[in-house]
């Protein structure tokens, strides 16, 4: 009895010692590799939770491949403040991801960022869509790359219904207007629009208007509008509201104006697949896929619902609106080059798309098999063929406008409770006090 337990103890002890030796020898090898590479990269990131886990997995794969260690440093709050403080104290990280290109401009103009022009000579450069290279470029110098992004300018529809009525996917804005008129003629309701979102009610409308601005006035005016270089009372802004009125209106959207205002954004998409369908189309970002499946769990992506890009005014590829993180470098080193190149590669992005569903790879060559379903794969394809890509403008505006008066202006406009001129004048007044810069700040004509 005693003997047996002694043997057991011995065996266990031996196993433990063996395990320990094995692990320590592994660690030793890694340490040697690290010494050979010489440098640990410091990466400050705003990713958190599930996104951080996914990002860490992508980075781990890099370390495994190259032996270069990357110290991922999550910053849960206000990237701008933290990075600003570190740059000012002479202790910037090697790399960071910035939540929007506005911050890239700020840091690049201050001379804090390292030029990534060398990236244009690499093999992976050809796999990057021009729109995203443009977005990471300031005054002809490349400062940032976009590995993954999200996409907003999408129209969701039920292919079965389209086939039943013989509708074709519109490739221009004019065709879209014709299509919705045809739908009305057939007794269908073209759109499901839901603007209710609790304390954030109105935001889905701002996405519509941003898409219109990109199409009717172009990306240059879009940037001016976001930066408040043109006032809200500008006729081009007015046109954007009027265009939205062609869609968010009685007869055009399910439930009319009241229905639009009282339907939750997440519930409204369910109308595509009810029997009979409440509407034919729904304009929303990629994330709405999970809402569709929540409302109708048995639906099959691609068969029961699909997407097409919100068409452009001419027949060219549609300008796209979305979001994403731009990766920038504060310190130059060969290891940083390797990491940037890695993030831009098919390998990294394919892994990323797999571990973080919903994120679309920007690289054109990432295969469709990286995505869980054909609809997401299609969204990625639309994204990577972008010629113009812009960030959600309301997210870039000061919160008092972009998450305040713009939202309520959308609601007021859809309700029709105030004349458009009043709505725009109120918006301009709030922008006037919220923007610290912008050429349009100051007294404006037409308003009292």
């Amino acid at each position, binding site marked *: 009895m005693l003997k047996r337990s002694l043997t057991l103890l011995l065996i266990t002890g031996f196993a433990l010692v063996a395990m320990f030796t094995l692990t320590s020898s592994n660690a030793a090898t890694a340490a040697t590799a690290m010494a050979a590479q010489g440098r640990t990269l410091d990466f400050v990131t705003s990713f958190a939770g599930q996104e951080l886990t996914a990002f860490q997995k992508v980075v781990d794969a890099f370390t495994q491949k190259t032996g270069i260690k990357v110290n991922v440093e999550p910053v849960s709050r206000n990237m701008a*403040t933290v990075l600003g403080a570190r740059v000012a104290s002479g202790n910037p990280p090697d790399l960071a991801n910035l939540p929007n290109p506005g911050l890239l401009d700020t840091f690049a103009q201050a001379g804090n960022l390292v030029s990534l022009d060398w990236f244009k000579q690499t093999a992976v450069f050809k796999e990057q869509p021009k729109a995203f290279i443009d977005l990471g470029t300031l005054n002809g110098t490349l400062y940032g790359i976009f590995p993954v992004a999200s996409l907003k300018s999408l129209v969701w529809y039920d292919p079965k219904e389209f086939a039943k009525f013989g509708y074709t996917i519109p490739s221009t804005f004019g065709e879209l207007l014709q299509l919705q008129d045809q739908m009305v003629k057939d007794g269908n309701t073209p759109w499901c629009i839901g603007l209710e979102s*609790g*304390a*954030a*009610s*109105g935001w889905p409308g701002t996405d519509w208007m941003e898409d219109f601005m990109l199409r009717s006035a172009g990306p240059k005016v879009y940037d001016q509008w976001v930066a408040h270089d043109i006032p809200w009372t500008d006729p081009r802004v007015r046109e954007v509201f009027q265009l939205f009125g062609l869609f968010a209106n009685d007869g055009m959207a*399910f*439930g*009319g104006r*009241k*229905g639009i*205002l*009282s339907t939750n954004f997440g519930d409204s998409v369910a109308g595509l697949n009810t029997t009979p369908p*409440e509407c034919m189309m729904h304009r929303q970002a990629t994330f709405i896929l999970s809402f569709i499946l929540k409302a109708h769990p048995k639906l099959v992506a691609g068969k029961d619902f699909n997407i097409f890009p919100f068409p452009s005014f001419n027949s060219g590829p549609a300008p796209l609106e979305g979001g994403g993180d731009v990766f920038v470098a504060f310190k130059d080193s060969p290891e940083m080059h390797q990491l940037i190149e890695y993030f831009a590669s098919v390998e990294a992005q394919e892994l990323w798309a797999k571990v973080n569903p919903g994120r679309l790879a920007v690289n054109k060559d990432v295969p469709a098999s990286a995505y869980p379903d054909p609809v997401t794969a299609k969204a990625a394809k639309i994204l990577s063929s972008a010629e113009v890509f812009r960030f959600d403008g309301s997210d870039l505006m*000061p*919160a*008092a406008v972009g*998450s*305040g008066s713009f*939202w*309520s202006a959308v*609601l*007021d406009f859809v*309700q029709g*409770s105030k004349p458009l001129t009043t709505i725009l004048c*109120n918006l301009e*007044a709030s922008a006037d*006090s*919220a923007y610290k810069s912008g050429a349009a700040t100051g007294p404006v004509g037409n308003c009292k």
Partner: protein
Amino acid sequence: MKHRGGEQWLYLAPALIIVTFFLIYPTLVTIYQSFFSFSGIYPKNFVGFLNYNRAFNDQSVLIALRNNLLWIVLMTSVAVGFGLLLAVLFDRVRYEATAKSVIFLPMAISYTAASVIWRFVYAYRPPGFPQIGLLNALLVNMGRFVAQPPVQRPLQVLLALLAAVGLLLFLIGLTRGSWEAIRGWHEGHRLDFVGVSIVAGLALLAAAYLAQGIGAAKPGSWTYLFIPFAPWQLLVGLGGGLLLLVALRDHLWGPPLLPVLLIALLLRFILSQAGFQPEAWLINRPWANNLALIVTGIWVWTGFCMVLLSAAYKGIPRELLDAARIDGANEWQVFWSITIPFMKPTIAVVTTTIIIFVLKIFDIVYVMTNGNYDTEVIANLMVKTMYQFFDFGRASAIAVILLLLIIPFIVINIRQLRAQEAVR
């Protein structure tokens, strides 16, 4: 009594320290901050009275002030009025404790939960689709009932009439005792709560049905409440009113019947507004949505008023009431000349308490509309400016304005409390 050197401060110190750190210091910082332009990132810029200047020129602040006034007037008067009515009436009811608990129950629910509940009550779906909101579902179904043309469906009408008469007879038989009790109300009999409810409910239905008329519904206008009475409806109304007056004078059926008629009138108004179409209650500005929010507040607060006022009512010496009755005073006279004067201090405290709560109203608006469609109130605007717009200076200025508005009511409240204690 003589205090030895500063000993009282020793006892006061803990409370004083807590109040200083958690109340006085933040208040002073808020006042200080209201003179700066500050977005959470330094530097702070001194801007003088700019934040106040902006506050009073800002459309949303003006709307918020208007709405707070509306809240004060409507919610205070209705919550205190209902509370008083219920406190006095329930005192005569057999199931007093149960009835009071039911009315008090909303007070036990958090405002956020109450707001979520009422959001469902007001929920809107487009016409022709199943309504998930209680109010719209009632409305649409009632519309279906009224819209059935009686001439075209004689059999159905006949059956419905027979059923109604049968039910009425049954209920009268069931509540015969209660009926007597209602008639004997002025003689100090206790009312039968269930009986009163059943009779009131039936009267309500009948009144609503009659008042609506058939096929007369025309939605959307305020004046509809008064104008499109057909002559025969006017006659019936006048005759009914005359009969009611007689009844009131002779038998004092007033208390149970008056609210019933008021509710019927209100119902008719709501129906006429909506025309049996589902309505987006939380969106129709500026009255429907603000009223919808205020009703939620009333639902929550009536119980609180009732409990406090009920306690005060029970504190009135019974001999006084009995003496007045023996001297020949009727119930109204007793109510106005004895009950009300005795309860005055409590009513004042309850009223000022409600006013203070109403000035600070936040949860209901935040959850149900977030101030959209002209339903903004000061507290919600303050939170929005602070945590959504990160404009600390303006948020502080709004907070100071709110504080200044509340202080007078706090002073009145404390004075009344002292007066009340002095009476005891």
